[in-house]
């Protein structure tokens, strides 16, 4: 096992910088944006009702699994997977290290002087390791959410499209774009190959690596879009189920 590395980082005085732009805006909106999502999703996951309406199923409660003896919300059986995937994601790590750990708060802005172990500490060193496991599990969930999105076209046996159908479809498309940009996936499909023309299936892996690379470039954006599309998808179905809004049928 590797020993923990320690560096002494930071400068006397937090936020020391000669930057003249509003450097605190980016970590601030990341902190607020993540907090709003966490607050809403925690409530929506624990409340345990209004998660389905007509052919629609909230992504917080899919796949739906609830043994009769389980006293709490069914979402707990599934939500740990996307939660773990996003907590260990390379982009989200950047976002929360900056926004919450202030390590660093922004580029060329000082953090307080402290002992720093980066991602070598007892806990954080496992993030890159577990990320790939959560990726494998998330792909299974994603397949299930595609099934849900296709089911959303099925209105009691007849084909139809409602606003909710489009909401669910958009959500699963954004989630797919987010998952395809995963750095662990990129490494898995071809990032770890040293010589494509020497490796077995080299051409296919080169193609896959190039394909995933395109999504890796937009990973930060997809992280935010898909985060909020999940919440808004749940909110839409919840409001329909509560009778607060009416789901419009397009077809």
């Amino acid at each position, binding site marked *: 096992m*590797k020993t923990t*590395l320690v560096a002494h980082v930071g400068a006397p005085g937090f936020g020391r910088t000669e930057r*003249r732009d509003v450097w605190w805006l980016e970590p601030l909106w990341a902190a607020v944006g993540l907090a709003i999502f966490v607050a809403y999703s925690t409530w929506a996951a624990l409340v345990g009702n209004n998660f389905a309406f007509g052919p629609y199923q909230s992504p917080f409660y899919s796949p739906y699994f609830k043994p009769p003896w389980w006293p709490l919300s069914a979402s707990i059986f599934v939500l740990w997977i996307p939660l773990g995937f996003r907590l260990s994601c390379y982009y989200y790590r950047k976002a929360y290290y900056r926004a919450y750990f202030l390590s*660093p708060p922004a580029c060329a802005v000082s953090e307080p002087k402290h002992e720093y172990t980066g991602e070598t500490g007892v806990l954080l060193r496992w993030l890159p390791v577990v990320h790939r496991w959560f990726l494998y599990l998330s792909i299974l969930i994603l397949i299930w959410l595609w099934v849900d999105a296709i089911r959303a076209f099925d209105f009691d046996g007849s084909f139809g499209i409602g606003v909710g159908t489009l909401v669910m479809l958009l959500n699963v498309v954004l989630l797919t774009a987010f998952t395809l940009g995963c750095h662990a996936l990129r490494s898995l499909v071809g990032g770890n190959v040293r*010589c494509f023309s020497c490796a077995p299936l080299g051409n296919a892996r080169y193609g896959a690596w190039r394909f995933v690379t395109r999504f890796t470039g937009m990973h930060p954006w997809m992280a935010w879009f898909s985060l909020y599309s999940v919440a808004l998808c749940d909110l839409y179905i919840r409001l329909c189920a509560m009778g607060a809004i009416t789901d419009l049928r397009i077809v």
Partner: protein
Amino acid sequence: MSTQAAPEDATSATTRYEGSVRDEALRAQARTGRTFTLRINRGEHGDSAGRWESYDVELAAGMVVLDAVLFVQAKHAPDLAVRWNCKAAKCGSCAAEVNGRPRLLCKTRLEDFNLAEPVLVQPMQTFVRIKDLVTDVSWNYRVNEKIIPFRARTDRPWKFYQRDVEKAQEMRQCIECFLCQDVCHVLRYSGEEKPAFFGPRFFVRAAGLDFHPMDAEDRVGQLRGEGGIGLCNITKCCTEVCPANIHITDDAIIPEKERAVDAFDDPFRGIFRRNGAPKP
């Protein structure tokens, strides 16, 4: 030094290129008639805080910060030290910080700033100052020497394709300006006491070798050990400042972190691993 007003006729005071009518004409064309204040952090060897001095500079069309610094050197402060060579963002010599952001002085246009306020220029904060804007970056050369050198494979013919060197080629775009080392919060403000950490520039170099199809060595163990790649918390400031547009975090550091997980940390991967041999 106090603020000096620019002379009314700029060309009479600046150094003329003898016989170059064309240069003179171009300079006249570029003149905007506007002046702005350049504040330069100056100091002698080892002075980390330094002192801020203001200079009036005549703005020329298309002027970059290096032009302004050279204007100050020519007209106000002949003892001002600044390191530069190519003035084309290829040599990496003029790395410094403009309005607090690590930049190449020659690639930073003054039009991008609000010139109603002074423009601040200071040396890189991670390295010890030699004089004014010049810092001692020799620590980087010592780190470089530690990296396991290229060793050619002998088990297959020296023949590979463009797709095989694509990853390595991106890493070869580096101009060694050390702005990434400067902005990295693990190294920043560390002065002479640098941690056991190679820094983004040398993760790039190691990745460039590790992704070379004809290299027989593997540096992942070295990076994880003395290279301290685990200290990097992928906050991407190195990528943000890179003037060569290398995706340092996405294409060098994260792939090496993933390779470290493959080689050392993932217990499931261990089942398929072939006695620690480098992958094809």
